C-alpha cells in the first residue's frame, strides 16, 4: 500500500481535494461547489455547513479515485483568505460566513484605518484594510449586528473553520492570519496593537502555528463524515495564495506567479517583509518559516476581476451556451488585431484592489466604434484583464520585485493565446503550470513536508511541473506598452464618472433590485 497525502483547498466557488503521493503525482481528485450568497447588493456570504458538506463530498471523491492501494498519511489545508466565520457557545456557527468579496464594511475599513493611521497599519500588517477583510468585517458585525457579535466566542478564517470541524481544535497559520489584517506580519503573530485599536479581544482568535506543523488529528465523528481513518494527522496549512506559490514551485524572488482565474493575482516571494507604504499591494507571511533561501513573506497584487470578466461576457452580455464558449470566444479574439481596433476595457466590474484599492471602481469599454465586433470585444476584455495584472505588477516592481520569469496558473493559463498575450504584455517568458489546483497541491505538500519533516522548498521544486515556455515577442511588447500607458491613464477620468454613477446608484437603490446569486464557474 503506497503512501499519499490529502490536500484540501476551500475556494470561493468550490472545494478541491487532491490525493498526492510522495513524488508529487496526483493520485486522485475531487471537487464540490457551493454558492456565494448575496442577500443584499455588495454583500457576499457563504454557509460553513455547505463548505463542510462539499468538503466531505470532495474528499470522498478524491480518495475514491485514488483507489484502495493508497493510504492517506496526512491532511493539509489551503483556502480562500480574508473572510470571517463567527462561532458562539459550543462552537455553533452564529451567522453566514462573510467572505473576502463582501463590500458592506467600507465605512468600518476607513474608520479603522483612520484610527490606526494608514501608514502604521501597513507597517504592521503589510496591507491597507479593505472591505471583506476579517478586521473590517468583525467591526461591522459589532456595530451593525451586536446580537451576533456579543455571542461570538471565536473568529476563524474559512479554512480554519473546516480544519476545526475535522480536528476539534482551532488554529491558524501566519499566511492566513496575516490576511485578516489583525496580524503583525513582522513577528508572524496576532498584533496586540491592532487588536487593541479595533477593540477585538485576543481571546476570540485561535493560536498561530507554522503551516507545516501538525494542528491535530481527525476526530471519530469527522472520520465518519469524510471516510478517512480517525487519528490521521492534519497540518495547519495556509491561505490559498501562499499555498499556491508552493504548489507552483515558486520559492525564490526571481519567479512570479500570475494566477488567472476568477480574479487574478501576481505574487513574488520575498526574503524580507517589504510592505508598500502607498498601500497598493499586500505583503503577507508565506507558508515558509523564514530562513536562508526560504522567503518567509511574499508580495501580492490582487486584481478582483479576471476570468470573472470573461464569464460576465459569456453569461451576461453575449449569453453564449457554456459548452465550448471560451474556446469560441478566444477563437474570435485571436482574429482581432492587437489593441482590438481601438477598444479598451477597464475590468473593474466589482471594484479593484491592486493597485487602486478602490471598491467603488466600475468597469468600462472605451474607444467604442461602430466597427467593433465580437472578436474586438473579447480581445479587449482579455487585454484589459492582462493590463490590470500588469498594473498590479507595476506596484510590485515599485516595492522592489524584479522577477525574470512568470509561472502562469489558473484557467487563463490553459489558453495558449492568453499565455502569449501575457508574455507580450509583460515582456517576460511564461511557463504554464502543468499542475492545476496549485493551492490544493501546496496543501498536500505542506502535509507531506510537515509529517515527513522534509524541506518544503526542496519538495516544492521537486513537485512542480511546467508545460512549454512561451517567449515574449519584442515588437508586440513595444506596442502593448503604448496601449498599457493609455490603460493607466484611463483610470482617473473614467473613475471620476464611475464614482458619481456608483453614488447615484447607491442613493437610488430601491427594493425592486433583486439580488442575483453569483454564478458558479462553468
Amino acid at each position, binding site marked *: 500500500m503506497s503512501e499519499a497525502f490529502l490536500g484540501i483547498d476551500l475556494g470561493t466557488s468550490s472545494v478541491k481535494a487532491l490525493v498526492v503521493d510522495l513524488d508529487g503525482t496526483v493520485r486522485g481528485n475531487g471537487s464540490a461547489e457551493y454558492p456565494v450568497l448575496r442577500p443584499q447588493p455588495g454583500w457576499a456570504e457563504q454557509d460553513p455547513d455547505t463548505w463542510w458538506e462539499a468538503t466531505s463530498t470532495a474528499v470522498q471523491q478524491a480518495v475514491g479515485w485514488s483507489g484502495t492501494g493508497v493510504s492517506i498519511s496526512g491532511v493539509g489545508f489551503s483556502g480562500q483568505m480574508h473572510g470571517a466565520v463567527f462561532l458562539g457557545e459550543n462552537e455553533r456557527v452564529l451567522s453566514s460566513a462573510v467572505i473576502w468579496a463582501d463590500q458592506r464594511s467600507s465605512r468600518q475599513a476607513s474608520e479603522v484605518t483612520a484610527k490606526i493611521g494608514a501608514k502604521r497599519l501597513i507597517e504592521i500588517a503589510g496591507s491597507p484594510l479593505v472591505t471583506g477583510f476579517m478586521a473590517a468585517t468583525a467591526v461591522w458585525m459589532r456595530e451593525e449586528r451586536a446580537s451576533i457579535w456579543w455571542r461570538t466566542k471565536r473568529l476563524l478564517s474559512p479554512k480554519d473553520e473546516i480544519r476545526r470541524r475535522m480536528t476539534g481544535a482551532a488554529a491558524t497559520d501566519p499566511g492566513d492570519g496575516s490576511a485578516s489584517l489583525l496580524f503583525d506580519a513582522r513577528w508572524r503573530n496576532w498584533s496586540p496593537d491592532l487588536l487593541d485599536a479595533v477593540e477585538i479581544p485576543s481571546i476570540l482568535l485561535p493560536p498561530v502555528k507554522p503551516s507545516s506543523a501538525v494542528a491535530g488529528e481527525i476526530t471519530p465523528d469527522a472520520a465518519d463524515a469524510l471516510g478517512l481513518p480517525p487519528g490521521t494527522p492534519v497540518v495547519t496549512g495556509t491561505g490559498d495564495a501562499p499555498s499556491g506559490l508552493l504548489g507552483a514551485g515558486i520559492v525564490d524572488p526571481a519567479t512570479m506567479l500570475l494566477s488567472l482565474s476568477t480574479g487574478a493575482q501576481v505574487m513574488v516571494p520575498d526574503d524580507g517583509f517589504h510592505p508598500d507604504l502607498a498601500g497598493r499591494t499586500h505583503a503577507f507571511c508565506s507558508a515558509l518559516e523564514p530562513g536562508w533561501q526560504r522567503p518567509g513573506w511574499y508580495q501580492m497584487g490582487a486584481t478582483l476581476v479576471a476570468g470573472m470578466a470573461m464569464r460576465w461576457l459569456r453569461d451576461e452580455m453575449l449569453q453564449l451556451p457554456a459548452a465550448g464558449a471560451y474556446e469560441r470566444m478566444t477563437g474570435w479574439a485571436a482574429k482581432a488585431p492587437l489593441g482590438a481596433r481601438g477598444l479598451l476595457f477597464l475590468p473593474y466590474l*466589482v471594484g479593484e484592489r491592486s493597485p487602486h484599492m478602490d471598491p467603488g471602481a*466600475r*468597469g468600462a469599454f*472605451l474607444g467604442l466604434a461602430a466597427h467593433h465586433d465580437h472578436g474586438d470585444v473579447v480581445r479587449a476584455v482579455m487585454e484589459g484583464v492582462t493590463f490590470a495584472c500588469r498594473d498590479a505588477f507595476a506596484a510590485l516592481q515599485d516595492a522592489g520585485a524584479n522577477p525574470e520569469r512568470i509561472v502562469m496558473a489558473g484557467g487563463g493559463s490553459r489558453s495558449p493565446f492568453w499565455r502569449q498575450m501575457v508574455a507580450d504584455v509583460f515582456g517576460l517568458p511564461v511557463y504554464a503550470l502543468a499542475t492545476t489546483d496549485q493551492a490544493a497541491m501546496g496543501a498536500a505538500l505542506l502535509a507531506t513536508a510537515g509529517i515527513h519533516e522534509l524541506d518544503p522548498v526542496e519538495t516544492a521544486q521537486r513537485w512542480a511541473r511546467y508545460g512549454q515556455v512561451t517567449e515574449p515577442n519584442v515588437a508586440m511588447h513595444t506596442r502593448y506598452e503604448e496601449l498599457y500607458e493609455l490603460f493607466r491613464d484611463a483610470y482617473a477620468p473614467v473613475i471620476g464618472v464611475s464614482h*458619481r454613477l456608483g453614488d447615484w446608484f447607491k442613493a437610488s437603490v430601491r427594493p425592486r433590485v433583486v439580488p442575483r446569486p453569483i454564478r458558479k464557474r462553468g
Partner: protein
Amino acid sequence: MTLLLGLDVGTTSVKAVVYHTDGIAVAASSLPTPTHVPRPGWAFYRPDELWETVVAAIRGALADVPQPEQIASVAVASVGESGVLLDAAGAATTDSIAWFDSRTRPQAAWLAERIGKDVLFARSGLSLQHIFSLNKLLWHREHEPAAWAQSVRWLMLADFIAYRLCGETATDYSLASRTLMLDLHQKCWHEETLDEAGIDRGLLAALVSAGTPLERITSGAAALTGLPPTAVVTAGGHDHVCGAFAAGVTRPGQMLNSLGTAEAVFLPIEQPLVDPKAGSQGYTQGAHVVGGGYYAFGSNYTSGASIEWLRDLLGASDDRVAHAELIASAERVPAGSLGVLFLPHLRLANPPYDDPRSRGALIGLTMDAGRDVITRAVFEGLALESRNTLEPLLAYPQVTAPRSVVAIGGGTRNPLLMRVKASVSHLNHHIVSAEEATALGAALLGGLGAGVYRDADDAVAAMRYGQHEITPELSDVLVYEKIYTEVYRRLYPSIAPLSQAISDLQPTAAVSRDHE
C-alpha cells in the same frame, strides 16, 4: 379622387410613393441609389443612370395605381449638396459628386483662404465644410475643364429630376441652403461669394419657394414614366426638411426628432443663427420648405447605428423575436440602468462637440450589467445625447424652446426608447407614423403647387397618418435629470482626451462628421 406623387432621392435608395391627399400611401416602389465608389473617400452618381432609376421607381409605383391619371402633381426631395452640370441641350456634362464625397477638401481649404470661414458663415449660415456644392463646382472647374466649358447650368439632384420631368429649371431655398452660395438672410444667390469664387451667376437656376409649380410633365417624360401629362411638377426640397413638413413641424416652438441610422434634432426658427459658434459646435441651418422661415439642425450621427451595433454584438441582429425580447428585458431594468452609462460616439462626437476623434464608451459596468441592463443603458445614452445636442441650441436667441417633440422614423417603433426619450427630455413625444415622411413631404409640396391644399397648414391638417403621444414618467424624469446634470454632461469632457488618444493609435482612416 386626387393622388400625389412624392419622390425621394436618398443616400441609399430612390423611392417613389403615391399618396391620397390625406397622406395615406396607395403605392410605393424603392430601388437602391446607384452609387459608384472609385476609391476610398470618393463616390459619384451618373446622372442618366440616376434618372433611369427614378423612372423605374415611378413605373414600379404606378403599377399598383389603377388610375394613374388621378395623379395631380409630382415633386422631388433629395439629399443636399450634390448636383448635376448640364450643357445647353440639357445633357449632363459630367458625373455628379456624391454629397459625402471627400475629394473636395482642397477646394474647401481654398475657400477658407480666399473668402474666410466667418465671412462665409455670416453670408450662408454654414460652417465651411468640403461637402457643400460650391466646393464641388470648384472641383469640376479645376479637374474637368472640358466638361466645365460645356456646362451652362448647375442643378441640385432634386432639381435635375424635376427638370427631366418637366423641362423647367429652378432651385428651392432649402436645397440652395446647402450650396454655400445662398445669402441665407436675403434668400438670393450671394453675388460676392460668386464673384470671389469666380462662378457665373448664370450657371445657377432661379430661386423659388418649395411648392412653386414649374410646368406640366413633358410628353416624353409622361411616355417614359406612365405619368399623366396633366400632372404638375413643383419645386421640391432638401430631404429632411421635407420630412419635417410632412410631420407638421413648420413653426418655432415645435421640434422634430427623426430617428434613423442617424438622428436629427430639427427646430424651426424665424431668423437664422448669426453666432458662428453655432457652426463650430456642429449645428447647421437652412431655409424651411414652407412658412418662409428657417430651421436649426443638429445630428446624432450614430443613433440607430448604436442600436444596430448592440443587436449585432448581442446576436439579435436578424432576429425580430430576439430583438423584441431584448427590449422587453430592458423594460424591467429600473431607470438609470443600475448606474451603467453609454456615450454613443461610435464614429465621432455630436454637436455641441466638434470632435471627429471622439469614441463611444460604456461605463459603470458591474457584474449585474447583463444584456438587459446594457440595452437600456444604450437607449438612455441615446436619449441623454439628444438632450445634450438640443440644450446648447436653446441658448441662441433665435431659437424657441420646444413645447413638445414630433418624432418620426424607424426608432419610433421602439416603445421603450420613446418612453426613455420622453422622460429624459421631459417633453411629450408626439409619434407620427407617416409612411416615408420625406416622400410625403415632397408629395405635399406637389399638392401645394397643384392647388390641392390652400396652404401648408391646410396640408398638414389633412393628414390622417397614425399619431400617438408618449408622455414623460415623472419618477423617471427626476432620475434622468440627476444623471444628466450630475454625470452625463461630464462624461464626454472627462474621457475625450483618452478617446482621442485611442483614436490616434488606430491606423484606420480618419472619420469626420460630414460622413453623415
